[in-house]
């Protein structure tokens, strides 16, 4: 199981980071969402994995670690707020600049590493 969760974290972070590096706002939003899934699961996994051992007093002999859960719970909600903020920022940028490029314009001078339009 630990191996599976580690793979999940790895895939989520890899996809998230790759999408965050894209040039348009929408993939970046998707990337950040994936990345926050990854980070949440990562934080959650720091308490170790336990099955059917809910951290409620009296329901389990050997309960799982509740602290990472409490941290992740607020992180999920804050993560949503951040995603929403980013989405709206992207919309505002679209409204102001008439482009959805993260740089606010399609051609930034001095950006040599950008390849030609394919």
């Amino acid at each position, binding site marked *: *199981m*630990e*191996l*599976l*969760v*580690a*793979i*999940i974290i790895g895939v*989520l*972070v*890899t*996809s998230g*980071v*790759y*999408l965050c590096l894209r*040039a*348009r706002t*929408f*993939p970046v939003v*998707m990337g950040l969402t994936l990345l926050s899934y990854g980070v*949440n*699961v*990562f934080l*959650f*996994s*720091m*308490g170790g994995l*336990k099955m059917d051992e*809910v951290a*409620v007093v009296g329901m*389990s002999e050997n*309960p*799982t*670690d*509740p*602290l990472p*859960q*409490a941290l992740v*719970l607020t992180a999920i*909600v*804050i993560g949503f*707020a951040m995603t929403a903020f980013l989405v*709206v*920022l992207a*919309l*505002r940028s679209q*409204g102001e600049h008439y482009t*959805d490029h*993260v*740089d*606010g314009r399609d051609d*930034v001078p*001095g*950006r040599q*590493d*950008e*390849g*030609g*339009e*394919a």
Partner: protein
Amino acid sequence: MNLAFVVMLPFLGAFLPPLVERFTGNRTLLACGAALLPATALALLYAPTRQVFAGETLHSTLNWIPSLDLSLDFRLDGLALLFALLVLGIGLLVILYARYYLSAKEKAGRFYAYLLLFMGAMLGVVTSDNLLLLVVFWELTSLSSFLLIGFWGHQTGARKGARMAMTVTGMGGLALLAGVLLIGGVVGSFSLQTVLESGDLIRGSEWYPLILCLVLLGVFTKSAQFPFHFWLPHAMAAPTPVSAYLHSATMVKAGVFLMARLYPALAGTDLWFELVSLAGMLTLLWGAFAALFQHDLKGLLAYSTISHLGLITLLFGLNSEMAAVAAVFHIINHATFKASLFMAAGIIDHETGTRDMRRINGLWKYMPYTAVLAMVASAAMAGVPLLNGFLSKEMFFAETLDSHQLGALSWILPVGATLGGVFSVAYSARFIHDVFFNGEPVNLPKYPPHEPPRYMKVPVEILVALCVAVGVFPAITVAGLLAVAATATLGGNLPEYHLSIWHGFNLPLIMSFVATAGGVLVYTQRRRLFALRSRVPDIDAKLVFEGQVQRLGRWSAAITQRFQNGSLQSYVAWLIALVAVVLLTQLGKLPALSLDVEMLPMDGVAILCTAMLVAGALLTTILHRHRMTSIMSLSVVGLMVSLLFVRFSAPDLALTQLSVEVVTMLLLMLAMYFLPVRTKAESSSIRVLRDMLLALVCGVGVAVMAFLVMTGETSTISQFFMDNSKSGGGGTNVVNVILVDFRGFDTFGEITVLGIAAMGIYALLKDLELRSAKYDSLGRPWAKDAHPLILVTISRPLLPLALLIAVYIFLRGHNLPGGGFVAGLITSVALVLQYVASGVAWVHSRMPGDYHPVVALGVLLAGLTGIGSWAFGYPFLTSDFAYIYWPVVGKFELATAMLFDTGVFLTVVGATLLMLANLGKLSLLDDKREDA
């Protein structure tokens, strides 16, 4: 009497002149106001002076930052006393002088405030008993001198001069700080007393060469030693009282003061001799030589000051106790004659309107009294017998003759000294002859010049009187002060010496004769020398310096533009690359990765779900250009993450994740309404490859780290929460109790962030106009259907049911999975469903559409619950609970935490709806515009 108080007096006094200026324009009153506190400080020093003369060293201590070994320690020994007297005494004379020097139009209040600020800083430097404290005051002198040099900020010269002085002395100050930190590292303390007693330890340390170089950098920049001397002539753009005070008597002496102060700790090695005496000798000669060729009165004095500072440095560098005594003696003498000369130059400038010696001639006729004063002071500068300059100069000559550290080349020192003397006599002669005789004045801006106001001459008279008194009766005037100061410098043993005018017909006297005769000879040949000098191109230090500063500016701008190129995409890449580097360096420190560890057994469902999650994530990424498909795949990922939480005993997280998933999808769909449906393929394959590499490094690194933590030994503090949840927080759902009780303060911060994000979104969406696409990616127009009937029919009865569930989840949250966050999200989903099904207009006609009051109310309620515990004498957010018996329901728990949770609930509902409803309204606007 507290020493710290005396040091603070000028700082306090700095507030007085601007205050006085506010109430009166009377310049005399203003000067009196400025002089009040320094005069008090000087008076307060009377009793300590007697103690110091009796051989005591006074200390005072105030703790400041004990953990850094930094305390407000002050000491008053002979050396500190000498400098304190110079700083306060000459400071008072300069205030009197400035009363007449500054014109009525100038902001004298500000000037005095800066001057007093400097005075306090300088007093701090000389009385600090802690090296770090000394550095702090040292920097303060640089800052206040910047303000004073730039006092006439409307002149370019003043601004550039101030900047140059600040840069050079500031960099020296940094070097000094580094040196002091190293000394502290070697000695183990920053206390001056300890450092002075650890001379052998420092000199024996392997760090000694570095320490010495760093400290000397501070000293040489401050005291304008070659090759850092160039800032001093440009600092002459300052008002003359400043030059008289800072650039002759005090600030430039801070460097030599530090050499005297640290003499027992640093001096006595060959390296010290080589560095210090070489810099001193070069400065002495170059300053004296350059002074002769200055046509500006203050320029001549500035180079002469450089030269005399070089002389003092050279004396310290000779590593002989007698030379150190001579150096201290020359510090006193130079301060008196040079301050009076600057003041005389200021009078001449004031009365003639120019400082150009080619125009100022024959002033003897117009201002004979000032002329006499200036001539006596010049003679002291030249080292004429019966004046104080002669005495220390003789000692200097004698010391150069006594030094044999250069072996067969030892003759260089006396020859260099004599040569310096020659030029010193020559420029002094020029100051006297060129200004007061040598024909008639040429084209003066103010004509005819006359004697200055009576009291403007008083400071000059006092200083010149001191020159004569010390020169004629050294034993009864200066001997006592010199003895205590020199004793403090050397740290104990004072060599035997006699201050007297006549030492017999000896070699130093012959050197004096040679210097005087040579100087007069050089002066008579000045026209030829000037002609020769004019053939050599001038190097304007200001131009060179400004050029370097601008080159540095361009260079840093180029580097900045290289990285700050306005491309957010590249910033993100840099950030992630940095994270990847950190990950790679840290992975090496983790234990070896092995799959052969104890793990929970896998099962088919888990593998299937993992496969689906991985597929979803990969599809989201690979198909990210097809945005709708990408969102669909993303929702699969979210769902699988919720299941993961279910599987691993985190029902609270699963509930939260599931509801968040719903609102996130809605949000993305709403945004899609305005954004292009497809992403163009525009990244080059190199960039794609690079991004893949970065992503893989991060992903694999994080996965490995997570795996190692999950399978490794962990220790946790959670047992505390498990044990105290019921008894301390009154709930059995530990996760919820942590949120609302144990770590309630964190949660309070988090809902505040949520509220702020919602407000930010509200602000961003205000007045935003966006046009939606009218056609899909294949060119078909979007359907304009009204709200689908089935959804409307199902969603309406769902609302009360969903709200009921939310209440249930909320109420049980303290004991079973649930709570404010989850209940808030469920409520939001239920309400958002109405928006989706029936439209914004329908919903807003049935309930208020303003959600920011709800957010505010939520944060306020949570905050008030926290503050409420103050009323009962408990810290912020202490919770309490009680059980009550309700009819029908039975035993029921009431906890203040529930009130807090209600705040959380309201914030979540308000924030979520504020975000989504406002986004929804945007499309409403768009539709209306279209209809119109």
